[in-house]
């Protein structure tokens, strides 16, 4: 097949995955929150609550798209696209198995973060264009929060890059095959040196996702729907979808960097290969379940408290940890005679 056709099919596959993910996550969110919060309705819509998703999707598709007259029309229409497209881009470097990936980028990790960092622009556009003071506040908060936590997010994964020697996500996953001492899988999460890394990545990731406890930009009880207040129907659907797909991406990154990607512990790579995508998806959805669990339990942090933690605590801790880890790792490799 011509490379162009293959590329096109891969892009369509990514789009399909994104939509499929959105559908699954609507159901999962309703179900998880339903059980956590004793909300009985969504759990009983159809068998296991599966009808909830069609209800939600149909509702969004058939709603009237209301555009308030005072909005900045171009920005208002463009903002959901600017929020949605980078989320789609971020799927490019994720390794679903040894051979299943949209593309094998040598700078995959950097590319994914770079794609995700375009999202705050879209949110700011949405907040500004909405001609609504509450949306403006939501957009401003979101921009401040996400820009502030880009740096800790990037810094937190540097030790892994040092350890694996590459930013290629596929290579990082393959480096986690095998075992230490014969019985401990080489997953990065099980290496004590990466525990601070994981915690820092987790916190920064949650902030980037605009997920509770860091969802000030869409704080339901303060700003109605924050930056998305004035959006209805499919524009809102796009914003919604991109939020779900961001959750998928961050969870997938976490799985790839720390939990061995598509691999199973102690099972050789060749046996796993046919099931690899399913294992990967299972792990990713487990991660998303934890995100939703946290969302359903914790109250919200205040924006200024969040900014203080980000700038005054997370960045210095990240930098310090990189120095410590880098020094120890360099000494270790020198001692091993491996450069």
């Amino acid at each position: 097949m011509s490379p162009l056709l293959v590329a096109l099919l891969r892009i369509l596959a990514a789009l399909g995955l994104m939509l499929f993910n959105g559908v699954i996550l609507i159901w999962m969110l309703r179900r998880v929150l339903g059980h956590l919060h004793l909300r009985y309705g969504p759990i009983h819509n159809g068998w296991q609550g599966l009808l909830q998703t069609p209800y939600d999707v149909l509702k969004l598709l058939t709603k009237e798209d209301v555009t308030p007259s005072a909005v900045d029309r171009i920005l208002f229409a463009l903002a959901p696209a600017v929020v949605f497209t980078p989320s789609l881009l971020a799927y490019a470097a994720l390794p679903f198995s040894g051979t299943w990936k949209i593309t094998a980028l040598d700078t995959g990790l950097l590319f994914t973060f770079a794609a995700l960092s375009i999202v705050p622009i879209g949110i700011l556009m949405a907040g500004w264009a909405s001609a609504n003071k509450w949306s403006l506040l939501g957009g401003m908060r979101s921009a401040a929060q996400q820009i502030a936590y880009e740096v800790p997010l990037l810094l937190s994964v540097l030790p892994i890059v040092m350890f694996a020697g590459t930013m290629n996500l596929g290579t990082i996953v393959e480096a986690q095959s095998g075992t230490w001492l014969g019985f401990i899988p080489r997953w990065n999460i099980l290496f004590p040196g990466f525990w601070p890394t994981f915690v820092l990545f987790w916190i920064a990731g949650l902030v980037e996702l605009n997920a509770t406890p860091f969802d000030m930009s869409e704080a339901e009880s303060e700003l109605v729907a924050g930056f998305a207040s004035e959006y209805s129907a499919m524009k809102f659907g796009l914003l919604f979808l991109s939020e779900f797909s961001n959750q998928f991406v961050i969870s997938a990154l976490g799985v790839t960097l720390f939990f061995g990607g598509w691999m199973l512990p102690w099972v050789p790579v060749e046996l796993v290969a046919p099931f690899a995508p399913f294992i990967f998806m299972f792990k990713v959805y487990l991660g998303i379940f934890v995100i939703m669990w946290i969302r359903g339990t914790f109250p919200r942090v205040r924006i200024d408290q969040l900014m203080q933690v980000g700038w005054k605590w997370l960045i210095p801790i990240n930098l310090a940890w990189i120095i410590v880890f880098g020094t120890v790792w360099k000494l270790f490799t020198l001692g091993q005679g491996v450069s």
Partner: protein
Amino acid sequence: MIDARNIILETGSLAAEGTYNPGRPPASIKRTPSGVDGLTTEHLIINMGPQHPSTHGVLRLVIEVDGEEIVAAETSLGYLHRGIEKLAESRRYEQLGTLMDRGDYVSGIHGEQAVALAVERMLEIEVPAKARYIRTLMAEITRIASHLVWFGTFGLDTGAMGQFLYAVRDREVLLDILETVSGQRMMFNYVRPGGVVADLPVGIDAMIRSFCDGFDGYLEEHHDLLGGNEIFQHRVKGVGAIPRDTALAFGLTGANLRATGIGFDVRRDRPYDAYPELEFDVPVGTIGDAWDRYMVRMEEMRQALRMIRQCLDGMPEGEHTARVPKVLRVPEGEIYAATESSRGETGVHIIADGSVNPARFHYRSGSLYACQVLEEILPGHLLADAVMIVGSLDIMLGEVDR
């Protein structure tokens, strides 16, 4: 265990220190352009409400913000004004309870009690012991129900949605109890001058006891989930602190006043119904911030539970109401009677002129004064804090607007 760090369980002290001397009125809303190095900025004037997920009822707060910091705030009321005081002048004394039900609709029994007490004192009716105990029992059950609403919505304001639904789950049991006793989940019309409408039904004792036994554990769980959460504590500690003299000068009552350290509780200091015979503590805070108000109300729920058990254990035999004429005609006179409602002092001032309708019926509610104090304490806080402060003051618009 509920952290008793800031709770002083006192049985005395009505003292307050200092005198509040405002040098200026609460800041009024105005657009003020301000300049910094040639860059002009303007304060944003935002409307919080009347439709807003966090103002409890149709409260409209006009807030002037500088970025995220509140510079001035103004409460705009009247969205729920139904003219209760005017309507009361064409109602008979037996019907006034229904109007009070619709004031503070979450804790209707307290309002009905206030009216009943006022009429009984004017007519010098002696309420039989059993009726007094039943009224106290219902009042404390309503107090827990109301505090659960406050607790749930307070958690909802912070973004913790689960706590709201857990609180509602417990409140459903209480509403079932209230429905079994009075026939209604909300507008009870149960407490009347002279006693209560009907005796307690058979089996209610077991129902209430089973709730009490479960609720001890649930209350700890609620407190763990919300108050024990460090994010919540950071949102709430030090926020919205009301100094004692300010609280007194603004006429605050109830948990809002007790959180500042002034231990005035109508149940203990102007006792009515069965309260003189019950043993309970009155929790008092120290600095009057949102955390203190939270702790005081959580402890009040525990004390209410204690009182419910005492009422059940000590329920006397007797009539559920005194012999009261069908149509009450109150001779010329005037009285003020107050009860400790979940929101403060709910008082009723009736001026009677000898006919079957009151000449003047004034409804003194605790939430009106809480609305006033908002204008005083909001400036200087962040916008997110405004939500927490409004939530912690437990304002119910029904009794503010009447």
